């Protein structure tokens, strides 16, 4: 299917829930957050669309906007050989439905988005940090998270105090 046909098929089924369409380079459709699961199910199952392959899920932070985050999905159809990008925005405390029930691959992708941006997914089987340690504070890919911190030095200082005699730490020995 070409871009126009894909847009038409989705528009027919969800006339109310599409917020934005951009087809300049890659086909991008922005949809309402609370409809994401039913739209995803439709994309996966509808004859002609058959987006059977989840390429990627990515979170983006726009601190200046009222609904702060974007979740961006990239889908691809191995059967039909076409691609689509789906977007949904949500505010700081809001939840978005997990699509793990449609594509198993979403499990880790959503954990990564949660880990690095703090976006929470509803009905996710195991929403835990994946790349950072469980006790990590903050979400590094948020725009207000600093690039360089003295976290490492603080940690080292703490460890030195615990394991080395006081004279060594103070540089007297």
């Amino acid at each position, binding site marked *: 299917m070409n871009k126009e046909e894909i847009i038409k098929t989705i528009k027919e089924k969800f006339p109310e829930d599409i917020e934005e369409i951009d087809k*300049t380079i*890659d086909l991008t459709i922005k949809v309402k957050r609370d409809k994401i699961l039913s739209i995803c199910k439709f994309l996966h199952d509808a004859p002609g669309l058959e987006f059977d392959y989840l*390429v*990627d899920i990515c979170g983006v932070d726009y601190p200046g906007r009222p609904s702060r985050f974007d979740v961006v999905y*990239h889908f691809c159809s*191995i059967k039909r050989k076409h691609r689509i990008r789906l977007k949904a925005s949500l505010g700081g405390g809001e939840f978005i439905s997990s699509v793990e029930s449609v*594509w198993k691959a979403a499990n880790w992708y959503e954990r990564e988005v949660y880990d690095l941006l703090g976006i929470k997914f509803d009905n996710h089987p195991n929403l835990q940090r994946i*790349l950072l340690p469980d006790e990590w504070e903050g979400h590094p*890919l948020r725009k207000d998270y600093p*690039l360089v911190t003295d976290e490492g030095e603080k940690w080292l200082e703490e460890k030195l105090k615990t394991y080395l005699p006081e004279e060594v730490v103070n540089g007297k020995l």
Partner: protein
Amino acid sequence: MAEVQELVVNMGPQHPSTHGVLRLVVQLDGEVVTKITPHLGYLHRGLEKLAENKTYAQFLPVTDRLDYIAAVSNNLAYCLAVEKLLGLEVPRRASYIRVILAELTRIVSHLVWLATHALDLGAFTPFLYCFREREMILDIYEMYCGSRLTTTAFRIGGVPRDLDEDLQKKIEEFIDIFPSKIKEYESLLTRNKIWLKRTMEVGIISAEEAINYSLSGPPLRGCGVEWDLRKVEPYCVYDELEFDIPTGRGVGDTYDRYLVRLEEMRQSCRIIKQAFEKMPSGKLMAEEAKVVPPPKEKVATQIESLIHHFHIMSEGFNPPRREVYQSIEAPKGELGFYIISDGSPKPYRMKIRVPSFANLQAIGKMCENGMMMADVVAIIGTLDIVLGEIDR
């Protein structure tokens, strides 16, 4: 009656057969795996955060550190993504050089995979053979760009250097002898009884499951799915070159993935051979003064070019406000860059879609159906993961 107890074994992060710093917590019933939980992040360097704080040109050398076995592929994917963002057309000769180096990288990556995979399963000789041939390709890289692993072989808008006659001769020599070397590996493994017992019917995954788990590259093709981005969405000049997509026997086990990768190495040789025949002469860099710095000779002799060079190198360039996703068929699968530009010289957000991340996720599925502890090692090997790109 004896009490039955489940055993929990911690494997890694420092373990030779986890191919890097992967940690697996394996629950065992006797020798049979009941559950497997991967723990990632031991190599997390925050590359995506770093990308938001570097100009487009500055981030290029960082991409070498993603899949450090096949750095050229990362460079290619990144350059293509930025060029798509800018709407930049690359000269044809540069595209051909890119294809030649990228296919050599596919061979390098598969050689390291075969070497370590076979070593994990107890075959020592293929390791020596594969690293012998890998050395030849690394020498070619060294002749081309001066480094062997972290290559930064391409630039945004083209390639920095031409393939001169010596280099071309060296690559052609390698392509001529390499098929006979693949035969050597095959004589050691393909009909070896121990190899067959260790790989056949191990780590089976069906085509539907593979697609649902977003597998890509040889693990997907090993299930019989004919999916190769070089054919489906041709980039560079792959649409002008002839090659086949191997799909194995269609069982989806470790042996199938072994067959697929061996055949891919042969196909890569075929592609390089054709590329040399069809390669036109011409420019190496696109002519776009705002993005591509002037040639070095001019920078050294003319003040305008020096200023121009300084501008591009220190400030970078401003791409239009838009977002693009561009992916390539890297040796390990679909490698894609999703770049959001806000019009400034630094990307607003860059997401790197790496093949190993999705491929590793399927390890739980592959370890079902009574796989044993020793098979876990075979399955990690057959997925061909690199932690540098999983953890980013």
